[in-house]
């Protein structure tokens, strides 16, 4: 089992050097992430949301990384658990909810959001992330890509192929490995015999760095530096040491394969609590702030769920929408036949 050393916990993160505005936004977004997570799990239990991947325990990691980005020019390429990062980057909550309700309409995000939609096949987004970064470099936009993958994803061939090509093409990309200890039921120790995921970078000819993923400030600074390196044409692997406090998804029961004793210390090193403590000491945060942030997040999340539920109108015609630019005639005929049958309500 992976666990941070006490040493790392004490030394990582320094409130100095990170602007108060970032700290306050980070705290608000971590609260919002937990509010959303909790509501999503509840909605799943009520049958209002499909299979959903909670991110409890990883809020500081996702929010800290996203806040380091320049939303105007930088891109996020997600896997599927990085909801707080995407929201921080501008993705609409309502779309994310629709997507997890099973409605493809949720995959549409405004053109101002520099991010790919969720992608479920593990690590298969990474080659595309490298291509985006390659294109940003060719266009000399100054932008970089933050590509998310998990500890399990590093075992995939796509991880290796992508990390390698990014080095060869000198792409402005940061591979952000969320090492949350578990790939469904497979513990980190069974993913690799290597001591570190960050060390993989050595084999690709660039740098890797490990950061305490429950320390938002450390993540923010680490990713900021990594992005600067990446913009200069040297990719970086950032390994964020964190923990999946919850289940893999709402249809997973981790009690089958791990002991609650393992989870307890990670609950106690909650990213919000850690940063809030320091921010209070520095006068940047108060109980009033926390209460206000929680109320605001609850309002926004409730409103987003209401909008998503109002927009949720799954229809047969969606099956063929946006699959092709030019829908083949026989596919159109198949879909018309389905529309006709489904309009009769045969499936009820």
């Amino acid at each position, binding site marked *: 089992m992976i666990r941070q050393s006490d040493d790392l916990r004490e030394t990582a993160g320094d409130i100095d050097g990170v602007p108060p505005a970032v700290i306050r936004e980070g705290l608000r977004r971590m609260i919002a992430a937990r509010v959303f997570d909790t509501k999503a799990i509840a909605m799943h239990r009520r049958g209002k949301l499909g299979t959903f991947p909670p991110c409890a325990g990883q809020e500081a990691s996702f929010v800290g990384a996203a806040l380091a980005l320049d939303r105007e020019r930088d891109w996020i390429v997600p896997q599927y658990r990085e909801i707080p990062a995407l929201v921080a980057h501008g993705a609409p909550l309502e779309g994310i909810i629709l997507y997890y309700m099973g409605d493809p309409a949720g995959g549409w995000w405004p053109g101002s959001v520099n991010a790919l939609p969720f992608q479920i096949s593990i690590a298969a987004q990474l080659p595309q992330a490298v291509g985006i970064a390659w294109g940003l470099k060719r266009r000399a936009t100054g932008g970089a890509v933050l590509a998310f993958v998990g500890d399990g994803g590093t075992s995939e061939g796509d991880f290796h192929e992508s990390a390698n*090509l990014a080095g060869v093409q000198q792409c402005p990309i940061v591979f952000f490995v969320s090492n949350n200890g578990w790939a469904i039921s497979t513990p980190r120790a069974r993913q690799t015999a290597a001591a570190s995921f960050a060390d993989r970078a050595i084999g690709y000819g660039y740098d890797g760095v490990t950061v305490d993923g429950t320390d938002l400030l450390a993540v923010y600074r680490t990713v900021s530096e990594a992005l600067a390196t990446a913009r200069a044409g040297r990719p970086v692997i950032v390994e964020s040491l964190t923990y999946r406090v919850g289940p893999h998804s709402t249809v997973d029961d981790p009690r089958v394969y791990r002991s609650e004793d393992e989870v307890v210390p990670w609950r106690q090193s909650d990213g919000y609590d850690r940063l809030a403590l320091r921010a209070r000491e520095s006068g940047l945060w108060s109980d009033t702030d926390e209460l206000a942030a929680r109320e605001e997040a609850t309002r926004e999340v409730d409103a987003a769920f209401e909008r998503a539920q109002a927009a949720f109108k799954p229809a047969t015609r969606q099956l063929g929408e946006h699959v092709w630019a030019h829908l083949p005639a026989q596919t159109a005929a198949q879909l018309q036949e389905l529309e006709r049958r489904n309009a009769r309500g045969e499936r009820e």
Partner: protein
Amino acid sequence: MSEQNLVSAIRDALQIELARDERQMIIGLDVGKMGGVFRATDGLQAEFGEDRVVDLPIAEGVMVGAAIGLCVSGFRPIVEMQFLGFAHQAFHQIGQQLTRLRQRSQGRFSAPLTIRAPYGGGGKTPEFHSDCYEALYAQCPGLRVVAPSSPTEAKGLLLAALRHPDPVLFLEPIAGYRTWVDDVPEGDYVLPLGEARIAYGNENAAAVAVVSYGLSTQTALRAAASLAAEGIDVVVVDLRSLSPIDVGTLCRVVEKAGRCVVVTDAPVTGSIASEVTATLMERVFWSLEAPIVRVGAPDVPHPLGALEQFYIPTAEAVADAVRSTLEAH
């Protein structure tokens, strides 16, 4: 018009498109200085630069995946898959990722890229190089699959593919690269994508329709010539597009002939020939005067070179199939 073989017709199309559209770039193995293992990109790096004709590490998955990302960044990459048989290592990026980008993003992103892939036997290649697994790709919604059957066809269809808003897998018959020669129109020449053509014969007078594509069209044409000498008139339908199939042309021609042979170089189970046959059975069954016959490779792996002579469907096998459909009552 100028006399060109398949390789030079393809290079011609690539050169025209790279010159016309600066978003186009070529990525793949050995495509730069070397000009590709078949020389299809010969001289293009010198003309368009190392930023636009790019040699990549040997990793097929990221080759296609990065091309998808380049599309998101506003480019139109042309991926040279060194051989279709090695595209299995990119199958998830082609069959799942490339085909889903548009729908996943609800139309915000698309990947109008072309993957060129040499395929098919006749070259006595080492294992995998000759595999004909085109049907795997034709079953992936969102991807067009195109197979030209002559240098002229290759130029016109490739230029159409490079300009099409949907991703295209473009299959180039290895056996035709140097041996197929015809008068290819010069300059910009674009053929319609998704329309079959009559490659031989008169659809109003033929006794049998022979349906084929790519390399197998040349086999069908040889069979047609020998059958004509016997007084048997066939019409050869060259599918050109394996996905989508031009069902209209296919059914029209077979309905008139009443008899049909479908040719593929692939193992016949689950092949394009099977799909064509099933389509015809659904749509023109009552016009048929004999069972449709599929001529394809046996359901075994494409063999090493010395056994190719026993494996690849021959013109005589096609001719025999035509004769058998005429004998049926």
